[in-house]
């Protein structure tokens, strides 16, 4: 019972006041209450081989406070769990530095082993300036207080370790952020350097084609046209690679804010029309309002929908139709893009969200990255994406559906990536710490 009570007290007291304050108060209260000259609390470190001064009241830190005034065997006996009271410091054979005791004016000393849940973790020394008689009950009570000190020391150890871990983690986080910034700026540079020559070369080809169409035969003209197209494809690949890398490194999280699904869909549908109309494809919508607001990136959600639409446009013949649906269901917004196009073979279906997976490897169109970018965007919004082909209701085409939860989901690591100035602070951390 005694253990339980003491443990409870230790926990709530430390939570309220912080370790330093409590052990300071402890040694002071004990000194005054026992009408002693002073009191020192020492911690046992290095697996029980060294006593280190932790706090004292009424007596100097050096000398007596160092914890080595007793002969080794006497000290060992105490640290095995046996309290010791030395009535006369000046003449007791167990005291090895009598001159210290004399200098401080200490006549008697009480040595109390201090315990925590695992065993003895320290020593409490109580100093008396005159010969003192302590009754059995008083000794037992002081012993209980020493034990309280022990539990508190245990909490202090744990807290220090926690703080050290938090500081390490913080340092790693800052390093990670720095590296990510470097990487992103490197990426921008590289993509620019990759794209510029492609743009220049394509520009030349276009102008040459224009100028010399009269003196080139059909085959040469076709060759130049093909070259221009292939350069377009390369530029798209470079852009997609940049996108993917940006998404990988969490760039998107910076764009998160409160957005309206209705606005996102409105803009996406408008752009979908622009993509589909030139190819003679109609866009139908089935949007069940009202739709909620969500903490997300509106540009990415639009990009997601448009990627799906442009896939559908690519594989749907002229005169075909694409349907965009959206509804709220069980705390998530579900959006589907459905077409009547050529569909996806069943054996390919499980792979379509992989990077560089192209439904038709021979086709020059598309980079194979579009759907993996879609999946990244969905992942970063903690949602899910899946495809059905053929569409069960119509037996043809493809439908890609994704769901995005409505609740603000912000994992701890997301939060730390977003906040630039997070610093660890725990209750009881001594003021004037390193930060």
């Amino acid at each position, binding site marked *: 019972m005694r253990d339980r009570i003491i443990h409870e007290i230790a926990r709530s007291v430390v939570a309220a006041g912080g370790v330093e304050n409590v052990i300071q108060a402890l040694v002071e209260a004990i000194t005054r209450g026992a009408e002693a000259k002073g009191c020192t609390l020492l911690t046992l470190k290095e697996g029980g081989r060294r006593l280190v001064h932790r706090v004292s009241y009424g007596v100097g830190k050096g000398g007596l406070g160092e914890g080595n005034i007793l002969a080794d065997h006497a000290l060992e006996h105490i640290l095995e769990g046996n309290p010791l009271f030395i009535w006369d410091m000046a003449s007791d054979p167990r005291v090895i530095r009598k001159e210290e005791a004399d200098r401080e004016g200490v006549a008697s000393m009480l040595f109390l082993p201090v315990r925590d849940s695992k065993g003895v973790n320290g020593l409490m020394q109580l100093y008396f300036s005159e010969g003192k008689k302590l009754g059995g009950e008083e000794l037992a009570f002081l012993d209980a207080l020493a034990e309280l000190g022990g539990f508190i020391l245990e909490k202090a150890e744990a807290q220090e370790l926690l703080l050290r871990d938090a500081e390490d983690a913080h340092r790693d986080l800052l390093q990670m952020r720095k590296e990510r910034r470097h990487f992103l700026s490197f990426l921008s540079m590289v993509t*620019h350097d990759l*794209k*510029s*020559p492609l*743009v*220049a*070369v*394509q*520009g*030349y080809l*276009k*102008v040459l084609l*224009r*100028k010399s169409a009269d003196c080139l035969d059909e085959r040469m003209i076709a060759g130049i046209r093909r070259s221009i197209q292939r350069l377009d494809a390369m*530029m798209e690949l470079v852009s997609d690679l940049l996108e993917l890398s940006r998404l990988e490194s969490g760039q998107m999280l910076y764009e998160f804010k409160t957005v309206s699904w209705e606005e996102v869909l409105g803009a996406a549908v408008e752009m979908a029309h622009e993509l589909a109309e030139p190819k003679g494809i109609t866009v139908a919508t089935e949007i069940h309002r009202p739709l909620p607001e969500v903490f997300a990136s509106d540009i990415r959600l639009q990009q997601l929908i448009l990627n799906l639409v442009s896939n559908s446009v690519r594989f749907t013949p002229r005169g075909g139709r694409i349907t965009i649906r959206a509804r709220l269901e069980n705390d998530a917004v579900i959006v589907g893009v459905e077409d009547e196009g050529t569909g996806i073979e069943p054996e390919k279906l499980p792979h379509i969200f992989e990077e560089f997976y192209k439904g038709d490897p021979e086709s020059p169109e598309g980079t194979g990255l579009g759907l993996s970018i879609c999946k990244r965007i969905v992942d970063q919004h903690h949602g899910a994406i899946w495809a059905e082909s053929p569409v069960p209701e119509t037996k043809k085409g493809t439908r890609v559906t994704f769901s995005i939860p409505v609740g603000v989901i912000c994992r701890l690591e997301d939060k730390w990536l977003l906040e630039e100035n997070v610093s660890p602070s725990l209750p009881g951390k001594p003021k004037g710490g390193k930060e």
Partner: protein
Amino acid sequence: MAKKILLADDDPEVVDATSMLLEDEGYEVITAKDGAEALEKIKEENPDLLILDLLMPHVDGFGVFKALEDPAFAKWSKIPIIILTSVRREVSNRRYELETGRSMSYGAYLEKPAEPDELLATVSSLIGNAG
């Protein structure tokens, strides 16, 4: 007299291909490889139109823009400008607003790669035919 166009871009290929295109249509083309050279040539040559790249060394396109707002360039502050760049329009507009507190105003903004026909149509809409 033929209309004069000042083309500023640090990529020699872009400068060559675009000059070829414009000269074929009858325009006179002066070129500059960065913003500093562009500003000098504006003073020397009095072009009727500027085609400006944004990302150039020393003085970039934004630098030219800002310089043209300075009283020293008052005589040329009304020259129509076509921005021809790989930077996305919203990005440029936002950057300019952040840096100067004003919105960027230009005759036209074309994102590279631009179709030759589109470029010619844009030039013509701003200064007419070569003349």
